[in-house]
């Protein structure tokens, strides 16, 4: 379903369904990108980020990017764009006291720069987004309602940001703040690379090279930030995406094994059962 709703406060909600896309664009405001089926790749500078239904991408204001879709079935993409004043108002409502808000002294210049990376689409963000998409698909134009959802999507984003960025940064054992930030940025590059290329036969050297870290440096810092090794993280992504494919497609399990990057069916079944306490076949029957 293809539409764009531009609200009176200049927030935008866009939906698209297409098999082919290759566009160079520049964001006018902070944008959150999702896909509900298939995948969409964004090239931002030298980084290539692929959004799947279990993830979303934050793109800051004035970022230039190329987005690409090349699929047999239409990819359902969805995006939310937040006006600067709406973001300022949201942030003031979160960090300022009621007294300051009432006296109008809270509004000052607030930079709306977010960590431009892939985040897991989970928890309340996923629920609120589904509800919002349902209403916009139905053609509901009640702007108060739509803005309520947008407000909650921002709230949910901050919760995810805290668990994905802030908490991970605090786990890194570097005294110097700028060192912590730089190491986190690089292990996040490694995470992005695995999220975007999980179905390829990727080596640790390739991940480390993308993250501008040595292999040993990557292993140590990734484990400190994420609590698991890069290999465990990659396995986790593959299993999660296999689970999604089992649930949402008719693909045979043997084919899904290869689609998500596993080489051996038996190890996939063992890992799947160990993680979800159910075999892939039983899960397919219950899904």
């Amino acid at each position: 379903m293809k539409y764009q709703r531009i609200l009176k406060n200049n927030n935008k909600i866009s939906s698209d369904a297409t098999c082919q896309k290759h566009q160079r664009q520049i964001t006018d405001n902070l944008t959150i990108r999702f896909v509900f089926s298939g995948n969409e790749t964004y090239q931002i500078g030298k980084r290539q980020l692929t959004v799947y239904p279990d993830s979303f991408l934050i793109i800051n204001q004035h970022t230039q990017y190329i987005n690409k879709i090349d699929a047999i079935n239409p990819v359902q993409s969805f995006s939310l764009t937040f006006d600067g004043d709406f973001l300022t108002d949201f942030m003031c409502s979160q960090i300022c006291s009621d007294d300051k808000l009432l006296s109008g002294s809270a509004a000052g210049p607030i930079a709306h720069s977010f960590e431009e990376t892939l985040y897991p689409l989970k928890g309340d963000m996923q629920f609120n987004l589904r509800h919002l998409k349902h209403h916009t698909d139905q053609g509901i134009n009640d702007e108060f309602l739509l803005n309520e959802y947008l407000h909650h999507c921002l709230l949910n984003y901050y919760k995810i940001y805290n668990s994905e960025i802030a908490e991970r940064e605090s786990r890194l054992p570097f005294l110097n703040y700028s060192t912590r930030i730089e190491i986190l940025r690089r292990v996040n590059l490694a995470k992005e690379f695995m999220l975007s290329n999980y179905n390829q036969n990727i080596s640790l050297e390739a991940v480390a090279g993308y993250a501008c870290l040595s292999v040993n440096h990557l292993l140590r810092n990734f484990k400190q930030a994420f609590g698991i090794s890069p290999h465990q993280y990659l396995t986790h992504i593959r299993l999660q995406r296999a689970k999604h494919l089992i649930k949402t497609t008719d693909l045979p399990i043997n084919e899904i094994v290869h689609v998500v990057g596993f080489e051996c069916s038996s190890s996939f079944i063992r890992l799947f059962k160990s993680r979800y306490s159910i075999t892939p076949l039983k899960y397919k029957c219950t899904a």
Partner: protein
Amino acid sequence: MCLTVNYLPVFVKNLQTEIDFYTSKLGFELLGDGIYHNDNQCKLVKAGDNTIIGIIEDPQSNDGYKSKMLLNTPDLLHDYHQLRLAGIEFMNKPQYSTNGLSAQFADKSGNSYILFEHRNYQD
């Protein structure tokens, strides 16, 4: 033994006000008259899941029986918005918890209602 619930009593100060509250604001269906304990009259209303509420007028019960009811919704933000448009004042903004999203409001008799959207975060 297999006991069933006939209806759930709710004590209110003004019957007509609360019938309006249940039917026009919460969207419950008015079923008609019912008999409460000791031949007292009540009004029966039905929720979307067929649960029946018996509304019992008791002007003296200012400090007496106050009900607290959990109302399920599949989409809290939508219903929160609709109820506010209908004039219901919530006691708090929607709050997230480990099993969903909730917001609380009250009727004019002091009975309180928790609007609740259950969310399974494990799926």
